[in-house]
């Protein structure tokens, strides 16, 4: 029992170290890599443009629900004028970075893990290695750089659409004056909230895309499965681990920033 626990712990520590080296190598390999900008643009398109519809739809419904629930709860205390405060702070501090990251994991992260797994399976990654190319610079670095750009932008879009959803619920469908709603939004959100939002978005983007890339890239190392099953298992693992990491990192970042002015 103790032996198994120790073995398991060592394996986790080894994998965490391997993951850290993998991510670090991706950034160091990017230096001087040819046509990196073109590959970053392509990754931005994959993570950004292609994921935009889902970000807008989920952001809108999140704002609608927040507005609806918030209005009736605040109405009990005669404080429905604070709906803009509730919606904006909830979105900017928590829901926009977390939900946008989860949506991006579901769409761009899973696609990345599957793509790299298939490339590993079909020896495309081996081909890059035998020709002396840096697989990290070619395959991983552009995705990580793109994530640092795309996640904050997608989070901003999510928050803005969510605020609009809150407005639709509170002011268009219910009885709150639009001016009251938007004034509360304006007064509630400060620079510290925006900073927290962008720190979370960047950290979530880096962690989730790195986790998805790591799992896809190393799909051949799985002992329990091979071939297509290994790709499917690696993709599932990538999505599950990324999602858990987003929530855990959210707690850590919030606890570090919540008491700061």
């Amino acid at each position, binding site marked *: 029992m103790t032996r198994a626990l120790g073995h398991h712990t060592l394996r986790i520590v080894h994998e965490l170290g391997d993951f850290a080296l993998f991510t670090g190598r991706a950034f160091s390999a990017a230096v001087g890599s*040819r046509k990196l900008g073109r590959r970053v643009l392509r990754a931005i398109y994959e993570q950004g443009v292609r994921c935009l519809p889902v970000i807008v739809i989920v952001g809108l419904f999140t704002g609608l629900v927040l507005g609806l629930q918030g209005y009736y709860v605040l109405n009990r205390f005669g404080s429905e004028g604070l709906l803009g405060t509730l919606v904006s702070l909830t979105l900017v501090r928590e829901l926009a970075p977390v939900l946008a990251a989860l949506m991006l994991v579901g769409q761009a992260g899973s696609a990345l893990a599957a793509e790299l797994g298939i490339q590993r399976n*079909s020896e495309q990654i081996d*081909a890059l290695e035998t*020709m002396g190319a840096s697989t990290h610079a070619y395959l991983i670095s552009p995705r990580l750089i793109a994530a640092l750009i795309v996640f904050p932008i997608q989070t901003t879009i999510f928050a803005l659409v969510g605020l609009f959803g809150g407005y639709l619920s509170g002011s268009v469908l219910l009885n709150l004056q639009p001016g009251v709603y938007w004034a509360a939004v304006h007064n509630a959100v400060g620079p510290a909230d925006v900073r927290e939002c962008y720190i979370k978005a960047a950290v979530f983007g880096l962690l989730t895309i790195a986790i998805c890339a790591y799992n896809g890239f190393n799909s051949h190392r799985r002992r329990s499965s091979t071939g297509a099953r290994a790709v499917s298992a690696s993709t599932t693992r990538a999505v599950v681990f990324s999602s858990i990491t987003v929530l855990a990192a959210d707690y850590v970042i919030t606890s570090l920033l919540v008491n700061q002015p």
Partner: protein
Amino acid sequence: MSDAASSSSGERYLDVRDLHKRFDDNVVLAGVDLAVPRGSVITVLGKSGTGKSVFLKCLAGIVRPDAGSIRFDGLALNASNASARAEFRRRCSYLFQSNALLDSLTALENVALPLEQTTQIPNREIRRRSLEALRQLDLDKHSDRYPSQLSGGMQKRLALARAIVTRPELVLFDEPTAGLDPIRRNGVFEMIVKYQRQFGFTAVVVTHDLPEALVASDQVALLDGGRMQFQGTPEAFNRSDDPTVRAFRDSAGALRDNIAALRRGETVTSKEDL
């Protein structure tokens, strides 16, 4: 092993000694020796599953051997010598059995990739050399197509174009004729010999296509039981009395005899497991 010993006295451009590789309990290579002279075409023969591809992947550095030494033009290739391995990769190309073309890139982009990622050659020169490689392999009209839009034979030629575009000194061919019909098999071997003569590279070909290998190679080697059972000229291979060589060489005749016996209603016991 006398044939192997006699042939090893020549130039050892690529020199493999006592190579071992096992996967868990499965011993694949159990002391493989091979000497490859510069500028030659050497074919490594063997039944399916004897470790030919593993051997080639050990040479290419995709699979790490458990023991043994590989020297390329005097460079010792081992895990701790990263610069020697990088030098080897710069001077060597590998043609995968599956072609391993990047499916999201066009034919031209696939061929340009090694130059783009491993050299500082200007983009215009990369394009010129890539188009030239495509033209040499009659693929210049398909430069904008993706690998999935090309036939099996064209994909093989595209993989060869990518392998030769860097003007390598050594090309490793892993089952280049796998899955091809006899006419295309001949075409691939002709292609290997033609471009080997044109560019002067050294070629190590792994295959189990005996007739084509004997015609196209300067030397043949036979891998069986984890070791090289033979290395020598095709003529020496044809004359060899080694039981393993004879069994492999006479497999077509053995099949003919067995089929004839089965048609006569006799019982035939196969000597080999499938």
